[in-house]
């Protein structure tokens, strides 16, 4: 037993491991990469072709072997999610692509859709085959107009070449995609809210259960995954689940897209194997901060921030390590917060975002997130806050946790709680002196 462990090759957890190669983002940024001829020249639709010669259960097994976990933020194992679909009956089934990327700090999916839309379509074909869905829904956020146009062209090109429609790629599998454009609502990233929005309703989340596998789009069996998850499936089918599982840590396999924003030398999207450290992402790839930093948000605005220390920077970016550190991997959207930014103001910015995006359905979120909490921040920032206000705020966010239909209230509460945990002194300075520890400054470059 111990010999077997010793013999196992060391997993790939660094971008600089010579065995690592960029796969997901290989073509993003290349001129003309969004066209079908380019995609096919680079091996496009071969993975789908191969998948279609096997069986749905074989595809699901391969994805289970890979250890892929959903890349939309929650990290649910993809293969297991796919096996939740009820046994096939005469009802229409749907595979849904959640392309409503809108978590602040996340911008990886947009580049996919703009520069490599066929990768997303190919992933949807494979997933549709695996769960027995002949129809796909691709819900892209309204602001991503270029992405929408590129996807529309890509889908039309696929129809012209027999990649979508009757008998996909010469097989007996029929599959088509409905492209649907959102109209500006963060809540549509929540799976059931997205389904309501697609159906032409207000995007209020639905009570679960029933889960989408039982009653999803139009009340029919549905499976929903993130853009990056679909793209990952393409490479898993092309190179095998074992190839994918050789990258990453025990509970987090494969390669993933991480994003860095805030004051760093080279902000952007970088592909790394899971388990690489924040230091590798922020320093080795993004060139390090351009001004002293005091904290970073690890995975999109809803994930609790971590203080800027050698210890936190050396944490591996995987699901388990983040949970142990009291935060979450989320979408992998890292935001660096500079020393000179007033933390209360930074968190108010996030709170204001969630206040704007609350759908108003559940009381704790409507009253807490959308109404009371931003007003408290406004009071503090106006120099009118008291120490008692801080106690009230902490109590309020505690009561917002886990008390609504969907996680939006939690998403707002978590960054607030983390800021109180690590930067309570900035709140106290503000209420004691009536002005922030770090004065407002001009952040705009010439």
């Amino acid at each position, binding site marked *: 037993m111990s010999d077997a462990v010793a013999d196992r090759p060391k997993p790939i957890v660094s971008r600089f491991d*010579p065995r690592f190669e960029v796969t997901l983002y290989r073509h993003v940024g290349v*001129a003309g990469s969004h066209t079908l001829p380019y995609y096919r020249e680079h091996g496009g639709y071969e993975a789908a072709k191969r998948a279609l010669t096997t069986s749905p259960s074989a595809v699901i097994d391969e994805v289970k072997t890979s250890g892929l976990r959903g890349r939309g933020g929650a990290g649910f194992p993809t293969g297991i999610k796919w096996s939740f679909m009820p046994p096939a009956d005469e009802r229409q089934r749907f595979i849904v692509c959640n392309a409503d990327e809108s978590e602040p700090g996340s911008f990886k999916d947009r580049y996919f859709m703009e520069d490599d839309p066929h990768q997303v379509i190919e992933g949807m074909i494979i997933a549709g085959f695996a769960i027995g869905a002949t129809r796909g829904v691709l819900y892209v956020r309204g602001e991503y107009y270029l992405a929408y146009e590129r996807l529309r062209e890509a889908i039309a090109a696929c129809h012209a070449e027999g990649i979508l429609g009757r008998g996909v790629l010469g097989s007996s599998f029929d599959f088509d995609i409905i492209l*649907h454009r959102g109209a500006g*609502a963060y809540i549509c990233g929540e799976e059931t809210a997205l389904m309501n929005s697609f159906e*032409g309703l207000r995007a209020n989340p639905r009570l679960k259960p029933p889960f989408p596998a039982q009653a999803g789009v139009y009340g029919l069996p549905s499976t929903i995954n993130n853009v990056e998850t679909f793209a990952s499936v393409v490479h898993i089918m092309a190179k095998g689940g074992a190839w994918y599982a050789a990258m990453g840590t025990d509970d987090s396999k494969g390669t993933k897209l991480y994003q860095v*924003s805030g004051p760093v030398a*080279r902000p952007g999207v970088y592909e790394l194997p899971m388990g690489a450290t924040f230091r590798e992402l922020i320093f080795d790839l993004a060139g390090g901060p351009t001004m002293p930093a005091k904290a970073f948000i690890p995975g999109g605005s809803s994930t609790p921030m971590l203080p800027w220390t050698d210890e936190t920077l050396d944490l591996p970016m995987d699901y388990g390590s983040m949970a142990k550190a009291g935060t979450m991997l989320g979408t992998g959207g890292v935001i660096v917060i500079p020393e000179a930014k007033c933390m209360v103001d930074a968190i108010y910015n996030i709170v204001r975002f969630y206040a704007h995006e609350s759908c108003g359905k559940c009381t704790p979120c409507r009253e807490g997130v959308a109404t009371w909490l931003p007003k408290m921040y406004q009071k503090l920032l106006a120099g009118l806050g008291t120490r008692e206000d801080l106690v009230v705020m902490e109590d309020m966010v505690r009561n917002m946790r886990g008390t609504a239909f969907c996680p939006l209230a939690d998403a707002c509460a978590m960054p607030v709680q983390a800021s109180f945990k690590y930067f309570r002194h900035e709140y106290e300075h503000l209420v004691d002196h009536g002005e922030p520890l770090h004065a407002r400054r001009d952040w705009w470059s010439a």
Partner: protein
Amino acid sequence: MSAQLELPTVAPFFADKPDLLVEILGRYPDYGRRSALMPLLWEVQRAERHVGEARIAEIADILGLRATEVKGVMSFYSTYHEHPVGAYHLQICATLSCSLAGADELYDYLSEETGVVNGETDREGRFSIQKVECLGSCGSAPVLQINDDYYERVTRSRCAALLEAMRADRLEAPWRERSGDTDVADPVAARADGSPSGTGGAP
């Protein structure tokens, strides 16, 4: 209020576009006809810069809904407009990463230059301003969305040049900002050795 003064005799929007209507309705299964609601709103808005009362009633008729139902959906989303926006609808992302790159100052500048504040359209119908939430351009912040297009890494000087171009009605298509792994001409070759490839500028 002005919307209620609209003449009821305005020609129906989709009356002379039967093919478009069939195409949009045809995207969805028969039992999902209502899904066409958002695309229909988009069509009207792209043509008229807002969706007025008469159009709302028309869309409701097409889908067998009441006008209030259509309005209820429309008002849920932040990108549909009840009143006309300007020929240049300036949408400034105000969320954290953009704010750290100067979005607040960008807003102040545009507001001062155009004379309108968040949610307003100027008298000539030329400029309107809307503060919006995260546009997914955090790595190339700050971002200014003009109508459908993203203008990224809008520095002070770039912003001034954009404004001048809009005033002269010769706004050019946006530059394609790339960052991180997407910011090299040939990423496949550049990344063969796994070395860092991003060359994005300072935010």
